[in-house]
Protein backbone atom coordinates (compact mmCIF):
# COMPACT_ATOMS: atom_id res chain seq x y z
CA UNK A 1 0.00 0.00 0.00
CA UNK A 2 2.68 2.41 -1.03
CA UNK A 3 2.56 6.14 -1.61
CA UNK A 4 4.11 6.60 -5.07
CA UNK A 5 7.42 8.30 -5.75
CA UNK A 6 5.39 11.16 -7.24
CA UNK A 7 3.60 11.57 -3.94
CA UNK A 8 6.74 11.41 -1.83
CA UNK A 9 8.71 13.80 -4.03
CA UNK A 10 5.83 16.26 -4.11
CA UNK A 11 5.68 16.35 -0.33
CA UNK A 12 9.44 16.94 -0.18
CA UNK A 13 9.34 19.75 -2.76
CA UNK A 14 6.39 21.39 -1.04
CA UNK A 15 8.00 21.23 2.38
CA UNK A 16 11.09 22.87 0.88
CA UNK A 17 8.96 25.68 -0.58
CA UNK A 18 7.06 26.03 2.68
CA UNK A 19 10.32 26.54 4.55
CA UNK A 20 11.20 29.60 2.44
CA UNK A 21 10.43 33.03 3.92
CA UNK A 22 6.90 34.14 3.07
CA UNK A 23 6.61 35.40 -0.50
CA UNK A 24 10.01 34.02 -1.51
CA UNK A 25 10.24 31.60 -4.41
CA UNK A 26 12.77 29.07 -5.65
CA UNK A 27 13.80 27.84 -9.09
CA UNK A 28 13.45 24.15 -9.89
CA UNK A 29 17.24 24.10 -9.88
CA UNK A 30 17.42 25.37 -6.31
CA UNK A 31 14.68 22.94 -5.25
CA UNK A 32 16.56 20.15 -6.99
CA UNK A 33 19.83 21.02 -5.25
CA UNK A 34 18.16 21.06 -1.87
CA UNK A 35 16.00 17.96 -2.17
CA UNK A 36 17.99 15.75 -4.52
CA UNK A 37 15.00 15.43 -6.87
CA UNK A 38 15.94 15.96 -10.52
CA UNK A 39 14.89 19.16 -12.36
CA UNK A 40 13.02 17.15 -14.94
CA UNK A 41 11.02 15.21 -12.36
CA UNK A 42 10.13 18.42 -10.54
CA UNK A 43 8.88 20.00 -13.76
CA UNK A 44 6.63 16.98 -14.29
CA UNK A 45 5.23 17.10 -10.77
CA UNK A 46 4.65 20.82 -10.92
CA UNK A 47 2.14 20.55 -13.76
CA UNK A 48 -0.60 18.88 -11.66
CA UNK A 49 0.44 20.80 -8.53
CA UNK A 50 0.05 24.11 -10.37
CA UNK A 51 -3.26 23.02 -11.79
CA UNK A 52 -4.50 22.24 -8.28
CA UNK A 53 -3.35 25.67 -7.07
CA UNK A 54 -0.90 24.14 -4.62
CA UNK A 55 2.06 25.94 -6.18
CA UNK A 56 2.32 29.06 -8.27
CA UNK A 57 4.97 29.91 -10.86
CA UNK A 58 6.78 33.21 -11.28
CA UNK A 59 7.80 33.69 -14.88
CA UNK A 60 11.08 35.01 -16.17
CA UNK A 61 14.78 34.26 -16.07
CA UNK A 62 14.79 34.91 -12.33
CA UNK A 63 11.50 33.09 -11.86
CA UNK A 64 10.60 30.15 -9.73
CA UNK A 65 7.88 28.55 -7.66
CA UNK A 66 6.18 29.24 -4.37
CA UNK A 67 3.21 27.81 -2.49
CA UNK A 68 -0.01 28.74 -4.32
CA UNK A 69 -1.88 29.73 -1.15
CA UNK A 70 -1.15 30.22 2.55
CA UNK A 71 0.63 27.11 3.77
CA UNK A 72 -1.89 26.71 6.59
CA UNK A 73 -4.40 25.98 3.83
CA UNK A 74 -2.40 23.29 2.05
CA UNK A 75 -2.78 19.80 3.45
CA UNK A 76 -0.84 16.63 2.80
CA UNK A 77 -4.10 15.27 1.40
CA UNK A 78 -4.31 18.11 -1.15
CA UNK A 79 -0.78 17.41 -2.34
CA UNK A 80 -1.15 13.63 -2.56
CA UNK A 81 -4.49 13.80 -4.36
CA UNK A 82 -3.09 16.26 -6.90
CA UNK A 83 -0.35 13.87 -7.99
CA UNK A 84 -1.66 10.41 -7.04
CA UNK A 85 -5.27 10.79 -7.92
CA UNK A 86 -7.72 9.13 -5.56
CA UNK A 87 -6.46 7.92 -2.20
CA UNK A 88 -8.95 5.06 -2.11
CA UNK A 89 -7.24 1.84 -1.04
CA UNK A 90 -9.32 -0.07 -3.59
CA UNK A 91 -10.72 1.16 -6.90
CA UNK A 92 -14.20 -0.20 -6.25
CA UNK A 93 -15.26 2.21 -3.48
CA UNK A 94 -16.74 4.85 -5.74
CA UNK A 95 -20.43 4.11 -6.04
CA UNK A 96 -21.47 2.37 -9.21
CA UNK A 97 -18.08 0.95 -10.13
CA UNK A 98 -18.80 -2.55 -8.86
CA UNK A 99 -21.97 -4.52 -9.63
CA UNK A 100 -21.56 -6.46 -6.35
CA UNK A 101 -21.25 -3.42 -4.08
CA UNK A 102 -24.56 -3.93 -2.27
CA UNK A 103 -23.65 -7.42 -1.13
CA UNK A 104 -19.88 -7.02 -0.87
CA UNK A 105 -18.64 -7.89 2.58
CA UNK A 106 -15.18 -6.38 2.20
CA UNK A 107 -16.37 -2.99 1.00
CA UNK A 108 -17.15 -1.75 4.48
CA UNK A 109 -13.62 -2.53 5.67
CA UNK A 110 -12.00 -0.75 2.73
CA UNK A 111 -14.33 2.18 3.34
CA UNK A 112 -13.21 2.41 6.97
CA UNK A 113 -9.60 2.27 5.85
CA UNK A 114 -10.20 5.01 3.30
CA UNK A 115 -11.85 7.22 5.88
CA UNK A 116 -8.93 6.78 8.26
CA UNK A 117 -6.38 7.58 5.54
CA UNK A 118 -8.33 10.66 4.43
CA UNK A 119 -8.77 11.93 7.99
CA UNK A 120 -5.06 11.56 8.60
CA UNK A 121 -3.73 13.30 5.48
CA UNK A 122 -6.38 16.02 5.59
CA UNK A 123 -5.44 16.90 9.16
CA UNK A 124 -1.76 17.62 8.43
CA UNK A 125 -0.99 21.00 6.86
CA UNK A 126 2.30 22.36 5.56
CA UNK A 127 2.43 24.53 8.69
CA UNK A 128 2.46 21.34 10.78
CA UNK A 129 5.30 19.99 8.66
CA UNK A 130 7.29 23.22 8.98
CA UNK A 131 6.83 23.17 12.77
CA UNK A 132 7.91 19.58 13.04
CA UNK A 133 10.89 20.31 10.78
CA UNK A 134 12.01 23.15 13.00
CA UNK A 135 11.68 21.02 16.11
CA UNK A 136 13.64 18.08 14.85
CA UNK A 137 17.16 17.47 15.98
CA UNK A 138 19.43 19.37 13.62
CA UNK A 139 22.64 17.49 14.36
CA UNK A 140 21.94 14.25 12.58
CA UNK A 141 20.27 15.52 9.48
CA UNK A 142 22.44 17.82 7.45
CA UNK A 143 21.07 18.31 3.95
Amino acid sequence: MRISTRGRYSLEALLYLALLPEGAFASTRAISENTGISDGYLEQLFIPLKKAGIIRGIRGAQGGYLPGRPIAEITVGDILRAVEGSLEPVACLTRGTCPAEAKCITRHTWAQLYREISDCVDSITLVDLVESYEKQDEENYAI
Partner: protein
Amino acid sequence: MKISTRGRYGIRLMIDLAEHSHEPHVALASIAERQNISARYLEQVAVILRRAGYIRSVKGASGGYTLARDPAEIVIGDALRILEGDMLVVDDLRPGERENRIQHCIRATVYNRLNERVSSVVDRITLASMLGTVDPEESYMYFI
Protein backbone atom coordinates in the same frame (compact mmCIF):
# COMPACT_ATOMS: atom_id res chain seq x y z
CA MET B 1 -1.97 3.79 -2.29
CA LYS B 2 -3.80 0.62 -3.20
CA ILE B 3 -4.34 -2.77 -1.64
CA SER B 4 -3.27 -5.32 -4.24
CA THR B 5 -5.62 -7.85 -5.82
CA ARG B 6 -3.79 -10.52 -3.85
CA GLY B 7 -4.80 -8.86 -0.61
CA ARG B 8 -8.39 -8.30 -1.68
CA TYR B 9 -8.87 -11.78 -3.14
CA GLY B 10 -7.25 -13.45 -0.15
CA ILE B 11 -9.76 -11.84 2.18
CA ARG B 12 -12.65 -12.76 -0.10
CA LEU B 13 -11.42 -16.34 -0.25
CA MET B 14 -11.50 -16.59 3.55
CA ILE B 15 -14.91 -14.95 3.73
CA ASP B 16 -16.25 -17.47 1.26
CA LEU B 17 -14.82 -20.34 3.32
CA ALA B 18 -16.34 -18.90 6.47
CA GLU B 19 -19.74 -18.55 4.81
CA HIS B 20 -19.58 -22.19 3.74
CA SER B 21 -18.20 -23.54 6.97
CA HIS B 22 -21.18 -25.89 7.29
CA GLU B 23 -19.65 -27.83 4.38
CA PRO B 24 -16.73 -30.16 5.21
CA HIS B 25 -14.61 -28.32 2.64
CA VAL B 26 -15.05 -26.07 -0.35
CA ALA B 27 -13.59 -26.59 -3.82
CA LEU B 28 -11.54 -23.69 -5.06
CA ALA B 29 -13.40 -23.81 -8.37
CA SER B 30 -16.70 -23.04 -6.69
CA ILE B 31 -15.19 -20.11 -4.79
CA ALA B 32 -13.70 -18.84 -8.05
CA GLU B 33 -17.11 -19.01 -9.66
CA ARG B 34 -19.01 -17.36 -6.80
CA GLN B 35 -16.41 -14.65 -6.35
CA ASN B 36 -15.81 -14.19 -10.06
CA ILE B 37 -12.04 -14.61 -9.68
CA SER B 38 -9.85 -16.74 -11.96
CA ALA B 39 -9.30 -20.18 -10.40
CA ARG B 40 -5.62 -20.11 -11.26
CA TYR B 41 -5.08 -16.81 -9.51
CA LEU B 42 -7.09 -17.98 -6.53
CA GLU B 43 -4.87 -21.06 -6.32
CA GLN B 44 -1.81 -18.81 -5.89
CA VAL B 45 -3.51 -16.85 -3.16
CA ALA B 46 -4.62 -20.07 -1.45
CA VAL B 47 -1.01 -21.31 -1.35
CA ILE B 48 0.04 -18.19 0.57
CA LEU B 49 -2.83 -18.52 3.04
CA ARG B 50 -2.24 -22.23 3.52
CA ARG B 51 1.47 -21.75 4.24
CA ALA B 52 0.63 -19.07 6.77
CA GLY B 53 -1.81 -21.43 8.50
CA TYR B 54 -5.02 -19.55 7.71
CA ILE B 55 -6.59 -22.25 5.57
CA ARG B 56 -6.19 -26.02 5.33
CA SER B 57 -6.35 -28.12 2.19
CA VAL B 58 -8.35 -31.30 2.05
CA LYS B 59 -6.94 -33.79 -0.41
CA GLY B 60 -8.87 -36.13 -2.62
CA ALA B 61 -11.17 -36.18 -5.63
CA SER B 62 -13.70 -33.92 -3.92
CA GLY B 63 -11.00 -32.01 -2.09
CA GLY B 64 -10.87 -28.36 -1.35
CA TYR B 65 -10.17 -25.92 1.43
CA THR B 66 -11.43 -25.09 4.86
CA LEU B 67 -10.55 -22.36 7.33
CA ALA B 68 -7.81 -23.50 9.69
CA ARG B 69 -8.77 -21.01 12.40
CA ASP B 70 -11.80 -19.57 14.07
CA PRO B 71 -12.95 -16.46 12.13
CA ALA B 72 -12.90 -14.52 15.42
CA GLU B 73 -9.18 -15.20 15.65
CA ILE B 74 -8.32 -14.09 12.15
CA VAL B 75 -7.23 -10.46 12.36
CA ILE B 76 -7.56 -8.84 8.93
CA GLY B 77 -4.39 -6.79 9.42
CA ASP B 78 -2.32 -9.92 10.01
CA ALA B 79 -3.81 -11.65 6.98
CA LEU B 80 -3.22 -8.58 4.81
CA ARG B 81 0.41 -8.37 5.94
CA ILE B 82 0.89 -12.00 4.90
CA LEU B 83 -0.78 -11.41 1.53
CA GLU B 84 0.73 -8.00 0.81
CA GLY B 85 4.12 -8.34 2.47
CA ASP B 86 3.36 -5.43 4.79
CA MET B 87 0.84 -2.65 5.28
CA LEU B 88 3.25 0.29 5.17
CA VAL B 89 2.76 3.43 3.07
CA VAL B 90 6.51 3.75 2.36
CA ASP B 91 9.45 1.35 2.55
CA ASP B 92 11.27 1.17 5.86
CA LEU B 93 14.73 2.69 5.88
CA ARG B 94 17.32 0.10 4.90
CA PRO B 95 20.17 -0.40 7.36
CA GLY B 96 22.68 2.40 6.81
CA GLU B 97 20.32 4.35 4.54
CA ARG B 98 20.23 8.03 5.41
CA GLU B 99 17.55 10.60 4.82
CA ASN B 100 17.88 14.35 4.56
CA ARG B 101 16.10 16.53 7.10
CA ILE B 102 13.13 17.10 4.85
CA GLN B 103 12.61 13.37 4.28
CA HIS B 104 13.11 12.64 7.95
CA CYS B 105 10.51 15.21 8.90
CA ILE B 106 7.93 13.85 6.45
CA ARG B 107 8.53 10.29 7.62
CA ALA B 108 7.97 11.27 11.23
CA THR B 109 5.04 13.60 10.62
CA VAL B 110 3.20 11.85 7.80
CA TYR B 111 4.28 8.30 6.98
CA ASN B 112 4.65 6.98 10.51
CA ARG B 113 1.33 8.46 11.49
CA LEU B 114 -0.39 7.04 8.41
CA ASN B 115 1.07 3.61 9.09
CA GLU B 116 -0.31 3.73 12.61
CA ARG B 117 -3.75 4.79 11.45
CA VAL B 118 -3.86 2.07 8.77
CA SER B 119 -2.85 -0.55 11.35
CA SER B 120 -5.37 0.73 13.85
CA VAL B 121 -8.16 -0.02 11.38
CA VAL B 122 -7.08 -3.37 9.98
CA ASP B 123 -5.95 -4.71 13.36
CA ARG B 124 -9.31 -4.17 15.00
CA ILE B 125 -11.24 -6.04 12.30
CA THR B 126 -11.50 -9.82 12.37
CA LEU B 127 -12.93 -12.13 9.77
CA ALA B 128 -15.83 -12.71 12.16
CA SER B 129 -16.57 -9.01 12.54
CA MET B 130 -16.40 -8.54 8.77
CA LEU B 131 -19.02 -11.22 8.25
CA GLY B 132 -21.51 -9.08 10.10
CA THR B 133 -20.96 -5.93 8.08
CA VAL B 134 -23.15 -6.22 5.00
CA ASP B 135 -25.20 -3.11 5.40
CA PRO B 136 -25.79 -1.14 2.23
CA GLU B 137 -27.52 1.62 4.19
CA GLU B 138 -24.42 2.18 6.25
CA SER B 139 -22.05 2.17 3.31
CA TYR B 140 -24.14 4.94 1.79
CA MET B 141 -23.00 7.23 4.55
CA TYR B 142 -19.42 7.21 3.34
CA PHE B 143 -20.03 7.71 -0.35
CA ILE B 144 -22.65 10.25 -0.96
